[in-house]
């Protein structure tokens, strides 16, 4: 019978205790217990249903994670004059209504947490040009934030309320005018930083901090990905197919995208800082125009909410839970 080192070309590690962070598929011998051990996948990643949102709206602003998501603004099924100033808050189990945004808007960006959230840009009701204003949320009420130097709509924002970055998007939706501009927020004011290389709108993105933002895809027909390092943007590995107006979540070395156009994607891609991987997990309901933004530290969990097209999708929420691994003793009997 072939030995493990013959099959894998590797020797089995001889350890006195199980390693703290074993890799999936790693095999070792625990000399204390006298067992051959393996780290295997306990449960594959999947999207499952979550509580339906309260307010039917999509293409609004979003932030938070699976246990503190917020959907703010957007537009509803009637489209006109259904620009929303509503805020829906999620606690991991159910949605409740929060404070109203000062300026109703859609296609803006969000980041931060439910008790320290930030939205910026988007399109206001009364002005065709992208909004310059930002608003801050404390978990119950919105207050005005700093004014951006350049309008950003259909863009993305990463980081937290007191250290955010907004990048690219539209300065004017009609006719569509894109911008390479990126700006940092310090909780009080905005300052220009290095431009993205390629201006796009309808981008997806993620980034736990303002210095580790990621820009993905966008309109029209774009697979390009750029990473920010605190100073400049660098093109990195592309996604396998065009995607715009979807959802991004996670960090630069542990990111996730799902949903989007064309065709209201169900597929999910994960990112490890270098490579994109098509996840086995797919949304049960394909969608696009999700609430734009999330702030979570990795791609182990995610939530998608306040999506389109069509009224039902505006309420339908799904939660992602990544693969879990379990360590087991190998039985050879």
């Amino acid at each position: 019978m072939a030995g493990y080192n013959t099959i894998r070309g590797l020797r089995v590690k001889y350890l006195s205790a199980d390693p703290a962070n074993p890799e999936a598929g790693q095999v070792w011998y625990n000399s204390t217990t006298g067992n051959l051990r393996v780290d295997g996948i306990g449960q594959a990643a999947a999207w499952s249903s979550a509580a339906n949102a309260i307010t039917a709206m999509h293409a609004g602003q979003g932030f938070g994670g699976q246990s503190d998501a917020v959907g703010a603004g957007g537009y509803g099924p009637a489209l006109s004059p259904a620009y929303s100033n509503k805020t829906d808050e999620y606690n991991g189990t159910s949605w409740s209504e929060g404070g109203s945004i000062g300026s109703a808007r859609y296609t803006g960006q969000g980041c931060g947490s439910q008790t320290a959230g930030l939205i910026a840009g988007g399109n206001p009701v009364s002005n065709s040009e992208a909004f310059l204003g930002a608003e801050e949320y404390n978990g119950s009420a919105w207050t005005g934030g700093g004014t951006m130097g350049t309008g950003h709509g259909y863009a993305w924002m990463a980081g937290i309320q007191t250290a955010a970055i907004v990048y690219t998007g539209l300065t004017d939706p009609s006719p569509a005018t894109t911008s390479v501009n990126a700006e940092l927020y310090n909780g009080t004011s905005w300052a220009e930083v290095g431009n993205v290389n390629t201006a796009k709108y309808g981008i997806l993105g993620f980034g736990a901090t303002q210095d580790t933002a990621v820009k993905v895809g966008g309109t029209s027909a774009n697979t390009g990905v750029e990473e920010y390092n605190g100073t400049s943007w660098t093109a990195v590995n592309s996604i396998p197919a065009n995607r715009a107006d979807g959802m991004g979540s996670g960090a630069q070395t542990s990111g996730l995208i799902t949903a989007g156009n064309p065709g209201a994607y169900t597929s999910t891609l994960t990112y490890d800082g270098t490579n994109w991987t098509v996840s086995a997990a797919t949304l049960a309901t394909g969608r696009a125009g999700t609430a734009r933004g999330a702030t979570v530290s990795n791609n182990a969990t995610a939530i998608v909410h306040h999506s389109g097209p069509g009224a039902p999708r505006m309420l339908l929420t799904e939660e992602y839970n990544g693969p879990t691994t379990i360590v087991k003793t190998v039985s050879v009997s």
Partner: protein
Amino acid sequence: MALFIYGTATNTGKGFFTHQDRQNFYLSGQPANVWVVGNNEKGALWLAEKNGVEKTKTEAQALVTAEVTAAQEAWDALSDEQKAMSSRPGQITLP
């Protein structure tokens, strides 16, 4: 044996389909509360437990097409400014 079961059921939110359900069978939500469910024992049980109403593929396709057509007509009636905010819904062919 057919690959899929078709039915209508209202998504009630959390717990309507679980992480484990997604491991157990194929599931795809479509307009008009139509669900395409992997044709195995667990998929069939899921649809029954959700008080789903089983449809033939033709019936399910008709429901989806009718809803998408209505959405297309609503979109066509929008102003150009409103159309710029979203894409025209595309017809869906069930698997």
